């Protein structure tokens, strides 16, 4: 466990030093959502209708931008090889890296989302569920994303390829994340959708690190 | 015969489907065979070169 916290602390420390990266992700999230009123018009009803979906799609794309560098730095400077050789469970190390990614990109996005929801005229009933859905959904996004990032390590055209691999796998999170917020707005119970999001996160947390570890081993071979 | 091509008024949807399927299947077969043949030739050349070399 101490190796887990050590790696997590190291990654968080690095992220803090390069806080511009996290800032860029949040800024992308903001500008992407701001584009929509220009595209569909500023009418409050239209915006309120699409707000949940827009916020989720923008969050997914923003997270995608940051995935590229989850493993690349370690891959290039050789610390990935050390991770593989240090005798710790690689799955656990992957979880530490994913946790660091979530804390440095997922959490800022969650904090920013109510602010962007205001510009999209999200009805008041939606805010709590939006934040809750993002809290339950973004870990899955980070977990699947890390798997994709590990698969494309060292490939040509990594970034574009990564989005092709990962975005289809995000569809369930997008469906239930958006549905939870819409249910809350229309006065329906959003509990079932939130529990599906939690279930997806549980599946992802058990299976994704295994795949990521296998992909990392091959990348380092 | 007329009736056959007419397809109960759905000719413009039924015939393109069969045409496309034919193009897709024949295309797969032809491109596979072409690659196979060119590789066979390349391999024969390589073998001949090796034998021919001192």
């Amino acid at each position, binding site marked *: 466990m101490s190796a887990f916290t050590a790696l997590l602390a190291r990654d968080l420390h690095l992220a803090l030093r390069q806080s511009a990266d996290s800032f860029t992700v949040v800024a992308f999230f903001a500008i992407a959502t701001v584009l929509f009123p220009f595209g569909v018009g500023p009418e409050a009803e239209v915006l309120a209708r699409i707000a949940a979906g827009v916020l989720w799609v923008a969050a997914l794309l923003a997270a995608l931008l940051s995935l590229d560098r989850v493993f690349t730095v370690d891959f290039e400077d050789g610390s990935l090889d050390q991770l593989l050789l240090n005798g710790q469970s690689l799955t656990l190390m992957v979880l530490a890296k994913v946790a660091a990614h979530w804390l440095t990109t997922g959490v800022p996005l969650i904090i920013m989302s109510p602010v962007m929801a205001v510009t999209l005229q999200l009805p008041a009933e939606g805010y709590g569920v939006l934040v809750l859905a993002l809290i339950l959904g973004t870990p899955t996004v980070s977990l699947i994303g890390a798997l994709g990032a590990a698969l494309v390590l060292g490939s040509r055209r990594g970034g574009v390829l990564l989005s092709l*691999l990962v975005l*289809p796998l995000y*569809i369930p999170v997008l469906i239930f994340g958006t549905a939870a917020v819409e249910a809350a707005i229309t006065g329906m119970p959003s509990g079932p959708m939130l529990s599906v999001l939690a279930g997806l996160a549980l599946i992802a947390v058990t299976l994704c690190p295994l*795949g990521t570890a296998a*992909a990392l081993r*091959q990348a380092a071979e | 015969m007329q009736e056959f091509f007419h*397809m*109960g008024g759905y000719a413009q949807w039924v015939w393109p489907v069969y045409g496309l399927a034919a193009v897709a299947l024949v295309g797969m077969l032809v491109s596979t065979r072409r690659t196979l043949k060119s590789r066979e030739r390349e391999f024969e050349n*390589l073998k001949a070169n090796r034998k021919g070399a001192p």
Partner: protein
Amino acid sequence: MHRFANPTQFMRIANAIYPWAAGLCVLLFAAAIPIALVFSPPDYQQGDTVRIMYVHVSSAWLMMMIYGIIAANSAMFLIWRHPMANLMAKASAPMGAIFCALALITGMLWGKPMWGAFWVWDARLTSTLILFFLYLGYIALSDAFEDSERGDKAAAILALVGSVNIPIIHFSVEWWNTLHQPSIIKDGNMSVDPALRLPLFLMMGAFTMFYFAVLILRLRSELLAAKIRNARLSQVADASAPQPAE
């Protein structure tokens, strides 16, 4: 199972199967096409558009079966490192993608006269579209590396990830669909009467045999490519080795 891991042994069996698969394919097509186009009656609801279904369902069947074959072979490749399993997956993927595209396009051509629109966010069409993206990702990943072996392994992991995800995606899409279109047009295309079942099964059989026959050709081709690569490498090695003294 492991007996088939040896490429020579595998190809001996495959080459013995090939004429049967090819012959059956020709025979089944010879029976299926006239029955599908002429001798079967139009459906009482869909009219003659039901003839599109024979091609559409066969393509959809193959796109799913081929993904299953890719996933199973990827698992065998990752667990036992069978080179043949890798080649099976590699040779199947482009065909799966093409059948997937064919299923999408024929679905759209069926949808226009039946639903009045080329594209409807119907659960099945949507899942097919997502599967198409999974195929594209698989193919793109498998040739994104300088080192082809790395590409093979990464693609194999992706195929397994996809096979876990496909049911999840499918159920999500289905649920999403009922949420937004509670009165989705009932596509009663599978509750077919027996007269329509015969051309459907014949067409599915013909498509499946076509896949097996072409797959065997593609396996031969992949093996040759590997042999050519090895011959090239040994040539380079010969050329760079010091000449033995006479």
